[in-house]
């Protein structure tokens, strides 16, 4: 990845890390944020429908009634005679969920929202009392944890990630052993074999911030020369100098870092939306750092990285696909066919054993026109994957 890009944020915020009783809560309050959003309506077939009347005046905009059951709520807003107060908004904390504005005296209008249980405020700027409470009663909204299919999907994904990180450890240890033994040609072939496992789970490794930078950072990201460590630091020496001289310490540190990652990923719980968004990040990364040749600028095994990122995205999508097929079959079809189109485009460059045993040709030999064809398939796939989270969450 490109560490200074921010993809790690999304997944890091959404994953919950459970370690020895310590709960690192997710940032951003994903549950609260989706209160009142469209998907809630679909989840709650028994939702009630009610109407709230609001008359804005110089005094206030108190709702009648002040309490309604969760479900579809139609807000009828009128202004009988206030020149000063001409709008009403429904707020959830500081957030506007709906509003009616420019209601000059005599005008009325309405808006409709799907609301979950909770406290809301009717807000009419300019009135003596600007905010009045509206209470929405009922049981708390169901979450993905109430859906066994989604719980199963997250467990399946967690198991897969753990397995990939285990292979990353095995592959990296073989690679670093070759580096330390001075077997340069072997090291070059083992480099890609280790890295592909990192590319597959990179969106989850980014949760750990520093460790990702140490393992996968680029020379451009390093504040000082000493901060440039990990795979790409060793890659630079292997391909630019064709030598392993002086790489022992870097090899040891890389090995230690992937072992540490392995320990950490044992205790992560992934949320469905985060898995989906992680897939988008992986596909975006193909576009920004693989197609461009940026990531493997010394070794040119970018097509193997491409393969890894694509496989990682495909795994994430696959675990969610049964649920997606129920919620939005058309999107499920689109995602599947665009994945296949991308895989087919990549396969045109497969080779056995391939450049540096990577299974693919040397990426520096792929022309700009050919890269553009790859990029077009990747772009289309990424666009469809980016829509999954909103459907399954």
């Amino acid at each position, binding site marked *: 990845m490109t560490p200074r890009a921010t993809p790690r944020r999304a997944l890091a915020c959404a994953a919950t890390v459970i370690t020895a009783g310590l709960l690192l809560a997710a940032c951003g309050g994903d549950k609260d944020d*989706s209160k009142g959003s469209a998907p809630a309506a679909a989840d709650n077939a028994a939702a009630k429908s009610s109407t709230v009347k609001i008359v804005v005046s110089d005094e206030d905009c108190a709702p009648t009634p002040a309490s309604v059951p969760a479900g579809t709520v*139609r807000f009828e807003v009128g202004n009988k005679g206030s020149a000063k107060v001409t709008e009403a908004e429904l707020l959830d904390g500081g957030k*506007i969920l709906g*509003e009616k504005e420019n*209601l000059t005296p005599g005008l009325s209008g309405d808006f*409709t929202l799907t609301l979950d249980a909770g406290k809301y405020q009717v807000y009419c700027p300019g009135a003596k009392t600007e905010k009045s409470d509206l209470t929405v009663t009922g049981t708390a909204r169901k979450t993905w944890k109430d859906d066994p299919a989604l719980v199963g999907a997250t467990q399946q994904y967690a198991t897969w990630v753990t397995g990939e990180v285990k292979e990353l450890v095995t592959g990296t240890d073989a690679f670093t052993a070759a580096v330390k033994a001075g077997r340069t040609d072997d090291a070059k072939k083992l480099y890609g074999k280790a890295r592909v496992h990192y590319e597959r789970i990179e969106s989850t490794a980014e949760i750990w911030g520093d460790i990702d930078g140490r393992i996968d950072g680029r020379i451009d990201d390093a504040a000082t020369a000493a901060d440039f460590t990990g795979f790409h630091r060793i890659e630079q020496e292997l391909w630019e100098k064709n030598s392993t001289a002086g790489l022992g310490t870097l090899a040891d540190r890389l090995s230690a870092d992937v072992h540490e990652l392995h320990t950490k990923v044992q205790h992560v719980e992934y949320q469905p939306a985060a898995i989906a968004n992680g897939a988008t990040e992986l596909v975006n990364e193909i576009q920004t750092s693989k197609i461009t040749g940026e990531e493997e600028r010394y070794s040119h095994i970018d097509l193997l990285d491409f393969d890894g990122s694509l496989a990682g995205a495909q795994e994430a999508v696959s675990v969610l696909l049964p649920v997606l097929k129920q919620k939005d079959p058309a999107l499920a079809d689109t995602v599947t066919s665009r994945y296949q189109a991308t895989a087919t485009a990549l396969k045109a460059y497969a080779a056995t054993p391939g450049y540096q045993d990577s299974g693919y040709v040397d990426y520096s030999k792929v022309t700009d026109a050919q890269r553009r064809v790859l990029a077009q398939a990747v772009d289309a796939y990424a666009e469809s994957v*980016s829509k999954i989270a909103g459907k399954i969450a």
Partner: protein
Amino acid sequence: MKTPPQGPVPDDTPDITPEPAQRASLPAASAVSRRRLLGAVGAGAAVAGAALGAGGTALAGRDSGPGAAAPAGSAAPATVDFRGTHQAGIATPSQDRLCFATFDVAPGATRADLAALLTTWTAAAEAMTLGRPVPGDEGDLNTPPDDTGEAVGLTPGRLTITLGYGPALFDDRFGLTARRPSALRPLPKLPGENLDPALTGGDLCVQACADDPQVAFHAVRNLRRLGFGTVLPRWMELGFGRTSSTSHQQATPRNLMGFKDGTRNIDARDEDVMGRHVWIGQEEPQRWIRGGAYLVSRKIRMRMEQWDRDRLGDQQDVFGRYKGSGAPLTGHGEFDTPDFAAKSGGRYVIPDDAHIRLASPEHNNGLRILRRGYSYTDGIDQQTGDLLGGLFFVAFMNSPDRFVTLQRVLGAHDALNEYIQHIGSGVFAVPPGLAAGHDWGEQLFG
């Protein structure tokens, strides 16, 4: 190089005519509320359909039709009708900015995919021309917003979105061979051109014009985004300043050579002239394209550094006009009819290779086209450090053969050729306007 002008010298004071329809500030009421429309739903709420557009969010006064000009001295209308007899963006008084893109249909995309996209594009284009965001379920925090958002808070800026189809679309990929507009074929090789394939052609084109460049760019960007998986962008141009006026109520703008080069353009309010020269009429056997037009685009690079070193007398001879006033070399005012027969000292006052002579209807059997071009820049030439830029020529006509006829003359003889080169090209059939309830998909596929 040429001799200095021989003819009478008119008042050569610079023209500083204000553009009546363009510069008036918009009334507060027309600052429609892109922000509000989006804002109401952008915060995470599901708002039922009826909530939008009702009550206080009424849109500002409409243009009374794509051909209507803004009344002089009053505010320009904020929106131009998307639907009508003809597509907007042709007879519409030229907006200040352009974003033009062409697309190829992606390999593997089907007729059904293309039809569905054109239906989606219709809805998105209509919404954007009204100053509304691309329709969708904005506000869901787990979903990327359906609209990219950069036009929120901007007025619609008389946005028009004009769609055209290139010759290649009517090959056998989509079952459209029997619907090919009869004059639609690739342009022949024309004299003096040096076309870059990367700047030429395309299965579809989208012309977005608006008075705000960000509104025009936003339109193309969002259509492109909706097209992922179905169409691939081929090339794109941003025109930063209009070089044509399509209504005599608009002042004639200047091109990057500093000249008024559109004084004798068709006045698009003249329905008779438009009917004879621009709109595809009853002579066309493909009924579905009648009421449309052909669009020819040419990316014309100007060698600005060399031009700027040419002496004024020669610059004026190249165009056949005075640089300051825009008057023909035989006249005093910009709109004086050029006298191509006038001689002085045995030579034509408007030289025989002057641009306005060779391009004139008088020298082309009355042939006219509606020009609607924009100045562009691509920054700096990395080899020479010279400015890269010029004219992104767009013209509408009832047959692309009209352009071919003109360009065969101009490309071979125009004195301007010393300073310009055609480097990109496109020809597209622009279908007629859509009636209420119809969309581009069903119009194309029938």
